[in-house]
C-alpha cells in the first residue's frame, strides 16, 4: 500500500515435474472418461510456471513489498526444491491422498507459501501449459465467493 494505492509484487518461478491424473475412487472406465490421456499409467510431465503474488505496505526504505532476497529462497525451499524434477504423485506426500491436478497443486503451493513472513500472500497462479492456467487466492476468497 502507498497512500490509497494497493501494490502487489508477482514473481514467476519455473519447475518441471511429472504427474498422473488417476483416482482410485473411480473405476478404470470412469478414470479413462474423466482424465483421458492424463491418466496414462506411467505419467507425463509439464514445465509448470508458478506465479506468486504478494502484497502489503511498500517499505519506504527499500521501495519493496518484500525483498526478493527473502521471497526467492522461501519459495525455493517450500516449493521448487521439493517439486522440481519430481513425480508429484509419489514424491509429494499430499498427492498420495489427492489427485495432482493443477487445481490441487495451486492449493498445495498456496498452503506452503501462506506463512511467508515478510508480506501477505495474495494468490498463487500456475500455468500447466501456455494454454491452461489456474489460480487460488485462499479459502477466505472462496468463502466470500460462496456467500455471494
Amino acid at each position, binding site marked *: 500500500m502507498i497512500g490509497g494505492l494497493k501494490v502487489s509484487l*508477482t514473481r514467476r518461478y519455473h519447475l518441471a515435474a511429472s504427474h498422473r491424473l488417476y483416482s482410485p475412487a473411480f473405476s478404470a472406465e470412469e478414470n479413462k472418461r474423466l482424465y483421458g490421456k492424463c491418466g496414462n499409467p506411467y505419467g507425463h510431465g509439464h514445465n509448470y510456471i508458478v506465479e506468486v*503474488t504478494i502484497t502489503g505496505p511498500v517499505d519506504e526504505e527499500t521501495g519493496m*513489498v518484500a525483498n526478493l532476497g527473502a521471497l526467492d529462497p522461501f519459495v525455493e525451499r517450500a516449493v521448487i526444491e521439493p517439486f522440481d524434477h519430481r513425480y508429484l504423485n509419489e514424491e509429494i506426500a499430499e498427492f498420495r491422498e489427492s489427485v495432482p491436478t493443477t487445481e490441487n497443486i495451486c492449493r498445495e503451493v498456496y498452503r506452503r507459501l501462506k506463512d511467508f513472513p515478510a508480506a501477505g500472500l495474495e494468490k498463487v497462479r500456475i500455468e500447466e501449459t501456455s494454454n491452461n492456467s489456474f489460480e487460488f487466492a485462499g479459502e477466505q476468497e472462496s468463502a466470500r465467493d460462496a456467500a455471494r
Partner: protein
Amino acid sequence: MIRVTRKLEFSAAHFYHNPNFSAEENRRIFGKCNNPHGHGHNYVLEVTVAGEPDPATGMVLDLKELKDILQREVADRMDHRHLNYEVPELAGKIPTCENIAAVIWRLLEPKITKGRLDRVRVYESADLFADCTAEPNGAGGRG
C-alpha cells in the same frame, strides 16, 4: 464493465541505493542491484482502464488517446533515461517496480477522462512485475 489494456515498452537504467543505510547494508539488502553504475531493463507497462463502452462508438476510450497519454506521461519521461537521476517523480524513492508502478498510477490517473484507471502493471522482466490498483475503499481511485 469492460477492461481495456494497452501495453508500452520502455528501456531505462536504475540502481538501488538508500543513503540512510551503510555501504554494507546497501550491499546486503539490494545485492547486485546496488552496483553504483546502475544497470537496465526493458520494462513492459500494461495499463488497464475499466468502464462501459460508449454506445455510439463501442469504445470505453479511444486507444489512440491512451497511447498518446502513455507516450507523453511515461515514455517521454522514462524511456532511455536513468530512473535515479532523470525522473523527478522518482526522486528520493528507490526505483523498484513497486514504486515505478505507483508513480505511473499517479501520473496517469488524472489524465484518464473516459473510464477509470483500473490497474498499472510494470514488468521489470518476464518473471517479475508489480501491480498497482486503487485500495478498496481507499483514495487512490475515483470510484
